[in-house]
């Protein structure tokens, strides 16, 4: 099999997995295939996709961002706390806070040369503290007035389609453009493939890494905002359950944690797979509590299947 065919196969496996899962559920419950239902399922998946979309850049570098759930929770708190007083400005501040978390992760990884999984674990801890501080250690309710005034873009509908889906697709398009049409996107792929060669070619690799972490922070921030909008509240633990599925959907989509290989649409497909698996488990009667078990196993298996072992001589 040529490299091209292998590549094609690797691209198609997640798509087929998704199709088979959807058809499997449809066999159980034909109503699942109704367009309205499919849109709702997609809409429900978008917060997960938003969180994972930015982190895809980081994983493509061969690094990881374990702070996304903390960042999302933090922005939900900032948004909910600030909306009553500052209105739309709160949106920008929350988003900026997400970006700032990414800035910190990037700086710590680059300048202190700390492996990303520890650096982002630590930054995640700091962000959780910020979230508790911003929310006064409780959930903050977002009033319906504020919601309709400022968060309709996230939770309303346009032409019968949930706005979450539109936001998700816009993000998908924008990030895909960045990844495949810009020099930065290409260098992300290059750094993930063979960092030393990129360094030797005179590229400032630190800048690439920094930007990737900032994008990850921004998208996690956006995910937190949309999540708060959907649930009508912000809380310091709002997104804590999302780290595992977010990373799982990146990997299940076919992006390898060793870096270099991946794309945003893969993460999109991965997010849908995770969502459909979740629905399927509910159909089959697997309790919500047990779903974590499945996702944990899926994560480890997907990593084992997608990892590029030629790249790492010593696995630590």
């Amino acid at each position, binding site marked *: 099999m040529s*490299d091209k065919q292998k590549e094609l196969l690797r691209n198609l496996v997640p798509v087929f997995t998704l199709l088979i899962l959807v058809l499997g559920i449809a066999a159980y419950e034909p109503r699942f295939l109704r367009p309205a239902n499919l849109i709702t399922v997609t809409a429900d998946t978008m917060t997960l996709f938003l969180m994972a979309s930015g982190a895809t850049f980081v994983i493509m570098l061969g690094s990881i961002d374990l702070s996304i759930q903390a960042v999302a929770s933090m922005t939900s708190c900032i948004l909910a706390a600030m909306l009553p007083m500052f209105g739309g400005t709160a949106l920008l501040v929350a988003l900026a806070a997400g970006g700032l978390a990414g800035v910190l992760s990037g700086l710590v990884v680059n300048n202190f040369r700390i492996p990303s999984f520890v650096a982002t674990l630590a930054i995640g801890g700091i962000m959780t503290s910020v979230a508790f501080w911003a929310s006064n250690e409780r959930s903050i309710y977002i009033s319906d007035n504020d919601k309709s005034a400022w968060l309709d873009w996230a939770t309303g509908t346009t032409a019968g389609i949930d706005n979450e889906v539109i936001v998700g697709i816009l993000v998908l398009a924008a990030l895909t453009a960045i990844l495949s*049409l*810009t*020099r*930065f996107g*290409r*260098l992300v*792929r*290059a750094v*993930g*493939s*063979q960092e*030393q*060669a*990129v*360094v*030797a*070619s*005179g*590229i*400032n690799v630190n800048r690439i890494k920094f930007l990737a972490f900032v994008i990850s922070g921004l998208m996690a921030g956006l995910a937190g905002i949309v999540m708060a909008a959907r649930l009508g509240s912000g809380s310091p633990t709002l997104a804590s359950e999302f780290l595992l599925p977010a990373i799982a959907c990146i990997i299940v989509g076919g992006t390898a944690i060793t870096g*270099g*290989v991946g794309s945003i649409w893969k993460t999109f497909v991965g997010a849908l797979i995770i969502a459909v698996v979740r629905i399927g488990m509910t159909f089959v009667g697997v309790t919500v509590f047990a779903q974590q078990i499945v996702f944990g196993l899926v994560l480890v298996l997907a990593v084992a299947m997608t990892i590029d072992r030629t790249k790492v001589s010593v696995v630590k």
Partner: protein
Amino acid sequence: MESILELESVTKEFPGVRALDSVSMHVDRNEVVGLIGENGAGKSTLVKILAGIHRIDAGTMKFGGEQASFRSPRDAFDRGLTMVFQEQSIIQTLTVAENIFLGREREFLRFGIIDKRAMNAAAKVELAKVHLDCDPATKCANLDFAARQMVEIAKALSLDGRIDSDIVILLDEPTSVLERREIDLLFEIIKELKNKASIIFISHRLDEVLQVSDRVYVLRDGAVVHETASKDATITGLHEHMVGRQLDHRYYRENKQRQSLGKPVLSIRNLSIDGEFRNLSFDLSEGEILGIAGVVGSGREAFARCLGGLLPPSGGEILIDGRAVRLNHPHQAVNAGFGFVPSERKSEGIVIGLSVSENMTLAAGKRFSKFGFISFERERAECQRWIDRLRIRTPSTKTPMQSLSGGNQQKVVLSKWQIFGSKVAVLDHPTRGIDVGAKEDVYELIREMAEQGVAIILLGDTLEEVIGLSNVILVLKDGEVSARFEAPVGAKPDQIDLISKMV
């Protein structure tokens, strides 16, 4: 005398290269055997076969009179063939005693617990054999290089009395970083060790080889070309055996060597990196090819990496077009005008996951993008031009880099710097690991680059290559320039002249 280690017609091939070609040699009991050869003569392959890292493809290896094939370095060690490498196999965070008995603690176990006192006492015995007077409970990180080397020899000697067979100790460049006093001591110890073990001594320093060994083998192009008793050998005689082959002038496109050079581009003044090389100075003009010769450890690799921005200099000055430049980071080097072609093509030269055109424009990417967005058509057109011009065999510009042959990959690396417009190309073993036909293409390409006015610094794979391609040759030895040869067409220096300045 009885042979402990016997190799007969040992052959080892790697894709495209025959690293060892029917090598036969033997080591007798209580004998010190010297092993010499130019870089790439096959010494390291031989060492790796003895160490159990590589397997032989054809021929036989006998150890202690029996057919032997070592599965791993540990397997070789357990049977009595032990190595002392220049890159030491000492775990710095463990103690001297723990290192000597690493992986062999069973002897000192009592109900699963290590009896440290017994282990230290046993280590003390081994240390005495190499006259190293230190506490076996010392962490190896607290010892200096010479002492750690002695610990390794002590580890080898610890087999004495623990196994039935004889011991062969292979010392690979053991003197390269030692002080004079330490070398004398090492030689004294080697003389004493002859009572207990046989020794294979590998060194670039021929005087030392002759001083310490009983017999010497000379390797060239993967084959044993000469064997002599040390007392009958002379240094110049060995030099002649190390080189041998005649230069083929057409092969290196000597007719295309530039006779007149352009304006000066690069000046290097007293450039140094602590522990690597000192006070390097020279000037280089457009179209000039400067060859740098030297053995491993002469500092020439470090020099090349320094110009690539990968090893910051510790002193001296680098001027390009009369302007001083700083080389603390690769992007400074690239922007200053250096294009570094590393010897490790697969890890530093190319990005495997990217396509041919993406690799070609990796350095010059800014020229092919607007507001960060890539102009794919412009990029494709430019890359296609270079593919045609350099005769790179690839189905398209979008082909993944890994599906190209080594030679074509190297051409892509060279084109990367030509597209960027580097003024000085630093070629670190540009023909390493590529087949003969592709080598000629690379030589052609180097000549073309010179013709266009690129100044070239070349670290060749072989001496012939350096002599054949260069206008001027600098010979480095122990971090300093030991000679400078003009190499105009028709009056190229002799390989023996060079090698005598190298070792």
